[in-house]
């Protein structure tokens, strides 16, 4: 699997390269600024781009804007955005085109390399990987909505994992239960929240996020 990495801090870039190579990824290009990222994805057509939000030359959300532009120029390009902080605003911008294949994770998630690589693969395959912190803050909002309160603690836990972009299989593994039990939970959740059930992981995530964000 071929990856383009955009990260301006040498130590982190180097660490990511080593980590991904250890897991059998091929590094197509490693750049340290926004314009170079755009050039690299257009020339190399990687399977997934791994992008830091804050990049030179502007040292603002350069990486995010470059990634969004890259997706406009290379439709469907899978992009996983890493950041020191997560903002719902940015999560929504990434999800806005509705075509999936996006991830938005805190840099800390790299610590757990198995999970991080799993997220990379999920995004490359057209799925979604949302940071648990984005989801937690969405749930914390305490919307006057009563529907969320109707969920059992277990259902809430499952909802969070669905929103992060995990498949039923992954959720079952995570919670150490059978996949059938999870399938039952998700269908109850979707009924309680009045969401259209769907087999497509990406559409599940979008539905849940749309629900939480309204």
């Amino acid at each position, binding site marked *: 699997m071929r990856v383009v990495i955009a990260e301006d801090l040498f130590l982190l870039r180097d660490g990511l390269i080593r980590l991904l190579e250890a897991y059998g990824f091929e590094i197509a290009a490693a750049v340290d600024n*926004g*314009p170079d990222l*755009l050039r690299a994805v257009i020339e190399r057509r990687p399977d997934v781009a791994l992008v830091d939000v*804050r990049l030179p030359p*502007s040292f*603002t*959300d350069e990486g995010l*804007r*470059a990634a*969004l*532009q890259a997706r406009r120029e290379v439709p469907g390009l899978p992009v996983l955005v890493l950041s*020191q*902080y997560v*903002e*719902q*605003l*940015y999560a*929504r911008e990434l999800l806005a085109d509705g075509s999936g294949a996006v991830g938005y994770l*805190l*840099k*800390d998630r790299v*610590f*757990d390399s198995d999970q991080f690589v799993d997220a990379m693969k999920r995004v490359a395959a057209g799925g979604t990987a949302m940071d648990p912190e984005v989801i937690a*803050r969405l749930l914390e*909002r*305490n*919307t*006057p909505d009563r529907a969320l309160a109707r969920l059992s603690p277990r259902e809430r836990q499952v909802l969070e994992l669905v929103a992060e972009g995990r498949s039923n299989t992954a959720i079952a593994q995570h919670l150490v239960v059978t996949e059938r039990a999870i399938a039952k939970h998700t269908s109850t959740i979707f009924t309680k929240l009045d969401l259209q059930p769907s087999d497509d992981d990406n559409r599940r995530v979008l539905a849940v996020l749309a629900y939480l*964000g309204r």
Partner: protein
Amino acid sequence: MSSKVIAQQSWPSSRIGGGLLAAGRGLALAGLMLAGVGLWVALAFAVTFVVLGIGLFLIPGILLAVRRLADRVRRLAGEWTGVDVGIPYLRRPGDEGPDGSGWRRLGWLLTDRATWRDLLWLTVDSTIGGVIALIPASLLLWGLFGIVMPAVWKPITDAGGSNWYAMIHVTSPLTAWLSVPLGVVFVLLGLWTGRWLITAYFRWARLLLAPTPKAELALRVRHLTKSRSELVDTRAAEVHRIERDLHDGAQARLVAMGMTLGAAERVLDDNPAAARALLIEARNSSARALAELRDLVRGIHPPVLADRGLADAIRALAMDSPMKIHLVADLTGRPEAPVESAAYFAVSELLANAAKHAHARGIWIDMRHERGLLRIDVTDDGHGGADASRGSGLSGIERRLGAFDGILALSSPPGGPTVVRMELPCELSSPKTSSY
């Protein structure tokens, strides 16, 4: 101190209502003038008795009473006619501090030029000012007298009273009836000129009651000194808080992490399972340290604000808020970073207040930049009753904005809605040209 009530002129739209109101207000002003004469006499009395010693104790009280009277006229000028009369005093009531009594009070009262200008105003007001203020009511009453002349001329002349009405010698029913149209003319004149005369009165009063350019400069210096020291204090407290957060938080966690890693290294060969547990602990510790640093950074300068500016930062804030927030932003560029930050934290504080104290469910934010002013209106549908002088949150915002000569105006009747308007003088820089 930097807050003020949004100025409004209050004249009824009808000519008659306005004229009558003007006459009433003129009478009220004349009443105030009478109080002024009383104060003048009291002051003359006190000065005469300085020799005996009692006078010295009376003078400060009388001078402060003069200030209160002058302040009332200044306020009425704004409320009744929209004539803006600034407060010229170097010290304001309640601002006296440790010098609030005795000799020193007399000292700073006498050295303030505004005190002497007040006294000059008091002297002249009892003549010129009083006359101007009384004209509308006098015209109305004199006119009414003319109109009722046919009914009253007889008893008056019978009693030997004066029988002249302006230039008419009232000696017969005919001449009495002739004074009716003249009376109507006087009434109309009174109604017509009332508003104009009251405004003229305040314009006149402004000459002596408003600060002179020199006093304005002195006040400005005073304001700058105060806001600067407040700013320095706030900054120092902020830095102290950050230092403490770093020391107790991230720094302590890094120390713990180093120790855990050291322990893991020691047991690595003998007990790999324990080493693994220690490594996991170290990793969790580093994640917590990062989370704490993230929160700290958000409190100092929110990343979205740095990246995108005010509108998007508030949009991001809205997404984390339990309330429904409607934002209209009309900004063509970005203010300077310190102003932007002050505006952001002000709005953030207002949102927190609205949710916490007013139990609001919806917020409407309107931001625009016009004629060198960044104006932000924040309206909520909560139960109101907010008071800038009591809520430390609001006065904190005022101080924050005050450092940039910004002001905050609040309207929060019990039952709501609460409307806060903030204005910050600033220029917008053109938006950064993006390569995407």
